[in-house]
């Protein structure tokens, strides 16, 4: 680690992993509620568990992105952060605000939480993924602005690289598009239309810039491939991301009251959305194959390659599966959507944050470049357990979704929703079992931070053996 201020990344990464554990616990609760409908009812109804599950995901990924930025920006810019103190202050503000929000979800009825936080003054609550009280949303804006100031001034006053400029573009976009969460008209169609400007333009737009930037940084560091080559790839990948992804928003405008021409725009452009993900896979494998050195941190390289593959499968292939309007007519709002959501978020965003943590954490904990061999083996077990189980979660949900679409929407005698849910319960059970394997993988992953800490660091030679 070359710069002292990179250290502020560490609490961000620790918080990210902690909240990740919470996210998965509530995922298991929801999975069980799918097959045991009265589980924890009425204390923790499904909607509360879901809010906690999805909001923790968003918050921990944001922690991860911010930690990644604080770690890589000084190194790229070749200077200390403008204000490490501000970064730490924002860490605590964000963590406390986030924790209070989750406590609010769990211990107060949602409508009471809305009253307590003055939702009537500026109603923004009660929309999917944007359930946070308005005051929490304002807090997110403050944290984002302070973060952008810190990162932005460091980048602009230091060495400017493609990686930092792309990262800054992505993070600025993240902050700007979040502002649409404050627009909540009475008109349901307009509400939904601009809601996607947050959700879609985040995950299929600006977040991919952040993903590309972090992935490029880790690949430069671990493979030693010439920066010029990597930066050229990065530009082409993110160009394809935005060229396909912006108009690709149209795949959300098929059935919400918007004009029918969106079925054409959405189908054509989102059918091309897998292209940048495929390029990312080719890119990552190419760079690793052309590496100029072997890096002793093997899990970091594994996570980087894993990100490229799983993002392509989850976001690319599973997205394409149901993105064409004639298909989506039957699959819209079924378990197919859930299947895609799980693998895409894990493959693209969970894995890129874990890639960065895997790369940076050894240095943040005082190692030269890598953990001990034993710790690395345990971490890679965590990788495989989580990754294989998310594949199975996705496959089971896909099976459930196909049956659901058929029984409820395509057969000669369409059945009611709850009747269909009972018929496909087997797949929900299988998904829950895969979920249990996932949390075992997560526990193994967390354990890797405590295993072999006193043992000597792995070198390229020992890592080869």
């Amino acid at each position, binding site marked *: 680690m070359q710069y002292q201020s990179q250290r502020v990344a560490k609490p961000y990464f620790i918080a990210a992993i902690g909240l990740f554990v919470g996210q998965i616990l509530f995922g298991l609760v929801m999975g069980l509620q799918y097959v045991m409908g009265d589980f924890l009812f009425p204390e923790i109804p499904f909607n509360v568990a879901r809010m906690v599950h999805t909001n923790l995901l968003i918050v921990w990924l944001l922690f991860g992105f911010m930690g990644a930025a604080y770690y890589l920006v000084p190194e790229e810019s070749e200077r200390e952060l403008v204000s490490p103190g501000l970064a730490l202050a924002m860490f605590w503000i964000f963590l406390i605000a986030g924790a209070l929000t989750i406590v609010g979800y769990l211990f107060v009825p949602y409508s009471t939480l809305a009253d307590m936080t003055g939702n009537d003054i500026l109603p923004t609550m009660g929309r999917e993924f944007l359930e946070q009280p308005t005051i929490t949303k304002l807090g997110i804006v403050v944290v984002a602005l302070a973060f952008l100031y810190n990162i932005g001034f460091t980048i602009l006053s230091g060495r400017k690289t493609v990686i930092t400029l792309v990262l800054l573009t992505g993070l600025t976009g993240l902050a700007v598009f979040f502002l649409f969460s404050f627009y909540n008209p009475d008109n349901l169609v307009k509400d939904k239309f601009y809601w996607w400007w947050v959700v879609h333009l985040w995950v299929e737009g600006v977040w991919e810039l952040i993903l590309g930037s972090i992935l490029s940084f880790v690949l430069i560091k671990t493979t030693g491939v010439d920066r010029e080559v990597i930066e050229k790839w990065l530009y082409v990948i993110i160009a394809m991301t*935005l060229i396909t992804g*912006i108009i690709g928003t149209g795949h959300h405008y098929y059935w919400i009251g918007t004009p029918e021409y969106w079925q054409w725009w959405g189908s054509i452009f989102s059918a091309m959305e897998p292209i940048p993900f495929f390029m990312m896979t080719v890119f990552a494998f190419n760079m690793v194959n052309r590496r100029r050195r072997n890096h002793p941190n093997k899990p970091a390289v594994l996570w980087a390659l894993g990100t490229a593959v799983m993002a392509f499968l989850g976001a690319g292939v599973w997205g394409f599966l149901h993105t064409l309007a004639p298909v989506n007519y039957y699959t819209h709002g079924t378990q197919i959507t859930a299947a895609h959501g799980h693998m895409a978020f894990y493959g693209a965003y969970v894995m890129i944050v874990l890639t960065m943590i895997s790369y940076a954490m050894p240095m943040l904990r005082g190692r030269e470049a890598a953990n001990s061999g034993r710790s690395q083996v345990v971490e890679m077990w965590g990788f495989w357990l989580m990754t294989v189980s998310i594949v199975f979660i996705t496959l089971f949900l896909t099976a459930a979704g196909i049956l659901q679409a058929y029984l409820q929407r395509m057969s000669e005698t369409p059945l009611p929703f709850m009747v269909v849910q009972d018929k496909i319960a087997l797949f929900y059970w299988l998904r829950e079992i895969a979920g249990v394997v996932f949390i075992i993988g997560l526990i193994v992953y967390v354990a890797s931070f405590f295993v072999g800490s006193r043992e000597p660091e792995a070198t390229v030679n020992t890592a080869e053996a």
Partner: protein
Amino acid sequence: MKWDHLNHCLKGATMSQAFTKAMARNIFYGGSLFFFLLFLALTFDTESALPDRDNRQAITEQVAMGKALWEKNDCIGCHTLLGEGAYFAPELGNVYKRFGSTDAIKAFIKGRPKDGIPGRRSMPQFNFSDEELDAIAAFLKYASEISNANWPPNIQG
């Protein structure tokens, strides 16, 4: 063809100097800007087409109150509305048509058991007033009359 060319340039160990980083950067900035402007143009067009589709003439104060209640109780956390939301409970964009009347909707919401149903999913009892029930039902009726390309495929949602 352009695409083949790009791929060709990117492939292999020796990246062709014909395709430079500056060109890649220009494609990124130019492409993103162009498609974002196109997106804004389509948005503008959509806004002008919406009055004939989004059933805005039906948005009364009561409907607005219903939407506020819908949000305040996080209905989207279990249900879908026009296919968006959670997949734990039935689609409600067409519930007015499925149930046949606002009275049936109100009766269903009112009749939910406080402690749930053993072993099964059950909607919580929200203890809405009659005025609130009317508002929620009116909101769901308004939603069901949005012109949305005949989705869902059938009454089951």
